[in-house]
């Protein structure tokens, strides 16, 4: 269990007029090597929660354990935690600052104390992994397109070779093609390296396609967790908190309701296609 949350509560701006409980008694585990998705509405506390995973926010109450160690212990090395639990923020504009793409990706490894050569080698590798082309390495990061900036930002974290990589809505504001590219790249990287991936998202389709397990957040609390199939089986409860199952599951439910003899419970387009074909074959 790389990361365990034990009754974590986080109060934003306590002792002021703007006091707000962002996380309320949150407990769960992140399992070794899984692809975990965190979903929830805007303001449900999902971003705040993942920022506790590498100690960027400190819980007001409760504990966070990393490999069995309490990260709030006095002698715990926060800097090392941050190199082992990498985090990519929503907007790449928030971290790109160097004159070239390559130099920017080197920032993390250099902070880890690596030699310039080693850092450059890692940056190279990470950039290629995220699908950047070599001729772009010496461009200014500000000349890139939105999707490319996103890739460079992800590479900047990958270059530190973290065990756990957290991505806070890495596809926000991208077109469908760019979104699929980034997520496919992540999945491929996940399968190749066996890293633990935590993906914050509010696209149910993405979660259904890519995640092994998911946690649903609502109003600062864990609403439910399980495999996407298990969670989406309760589409009614999800719709009560303003979330929905993927459109294909809803479509399958509608088909069933209109009298067609299809199996419901499909959560990806592939599964839906199989179920429909099965039904058609039976009828023929």
């Amino acid at each position, binding site marked *: 269990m790389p990361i365990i949350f034990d009754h974590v509560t986080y109060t934003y*701006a306590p002792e002021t007029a703007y006091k707000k409980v962002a996380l309320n008694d949150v407990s769960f585990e992140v399992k070794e090597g899984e692809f975990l998705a965190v979903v929830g509405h805007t303001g449900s506390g999902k971003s705040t929660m993942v920022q506790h995973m590498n100690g960027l926010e400190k819980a007001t109450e409760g504990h966070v354990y990393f490999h069995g160690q309490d990260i709030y212990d006095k002698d715990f090395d926060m800097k090392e935690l*941050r190199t082992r639990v990498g985090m990519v*923020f929503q907007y790449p504009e928030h971290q790109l600052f160097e004159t070239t793409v390559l130099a920017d990706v080197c*920032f993390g490894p250099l902070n880890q104390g690596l030699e310039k050569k080693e850092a450059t080698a890692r940056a190279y590798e990470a950039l290629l992994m995220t699908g950047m082309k070599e001729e772009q390495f010496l461009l200014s990061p500000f000349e890139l397109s939105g999707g490319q900036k996103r890739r460079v930002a992800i590479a900047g974290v990958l270059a530190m070779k973290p065990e756990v990589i957290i991505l806070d809505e890495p596809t926000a504001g991208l077109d469908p093609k760019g979104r699929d590219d980034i997520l496919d790249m992540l999945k491929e990287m996940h399968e190749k390296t066996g890293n633990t991936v935590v993906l914050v998202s509010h696209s149910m389709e993405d979660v259904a396609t890519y995640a092994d397990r998911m946690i649903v957040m609502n109003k600062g609390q864990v609403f439910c967790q399980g495999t996407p199939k298990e969670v989406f089986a309760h589409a009614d409860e999800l719709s009560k908190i303003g979330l929905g199952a993927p459109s294909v599951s809803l479509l399958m439910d509608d088909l069933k309701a209109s009298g067609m003899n299809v199996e419901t419970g499909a959560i990806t387009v592939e599964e839906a296609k199989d179920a429909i074909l099965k039904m058609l074959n039976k009828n023929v």
Partner: protein
Amino acid sequence: MFKDITLGQYYPADSVLHKLDPRVKLFGTLIYIICLFSFKGPIGIAIILGFLAAVIILSKVPFKFMVKGLRGIVFLVIFAGLINLFMTNGDIIWEWKKLHITRQGLDNCILMTTRMVLLIVGSSVMTLTTTPNSLTDGLEKSMKPLNKIKIPVHDISMMMSIALRFIPILTEETEKIQKAQMARGAEFDGKNIIKKVKAMIPLLVPLFVSAFRRANDLALAMEARCYNGGEGRTKMHPLRYVKSDVVAYVILWIFLALVIAARILWVKVLA
């Protein structure tokens, strides 16, 4: 790190003071400052303290927020107090080598520090009960006559409100950038000054980029809505005096009159 910025420290509450016209509050603060620097004698200070206490109670803002503003000037108050205490000439009441305290020095020291503390607490009542936006609105309207001598009052107040509006946005942005860089192993709390300055680069570059982008977007949005200065522009919530504002003005004038009367009385008593 950035949470201690006190500008725009508005505290939302439902009180008479919050509802007052910002012009009244601006004028009231001015009167209050005049009183602070012109009072003489125990009756004068008693009137001022009473007035301040009444205003604080009326504002429904917890007292600890008023005192918060003092934290920044503690050093200044102590320094001014000490200078006054030791550097004033007059009747010596205590002496040790080259240091000496005079009666006049002691008086000045007490007067000076009380004034500064009361000044900060009093003016924070205004900023705590008025949103920065209505404050600039109030300033714009009060300064309108300056238009006649070719001072671009509207432009200045527009710049002020935009600047004020951007403070929380940029603060939030700075925090986000800081987190993003900390996630990549950057450290902002080093002891070495050169390292500290160098550590600011990954913070400042994205901040400037985003500030320029935001300024650009805002200019575009304003132009798209045909903004062309204050000429003929109307307000969504124009400032209008209501009954409670008139009452407040009357109370303020009485307050000023009382303090002046107390001063004259005290001078006569001394004479």
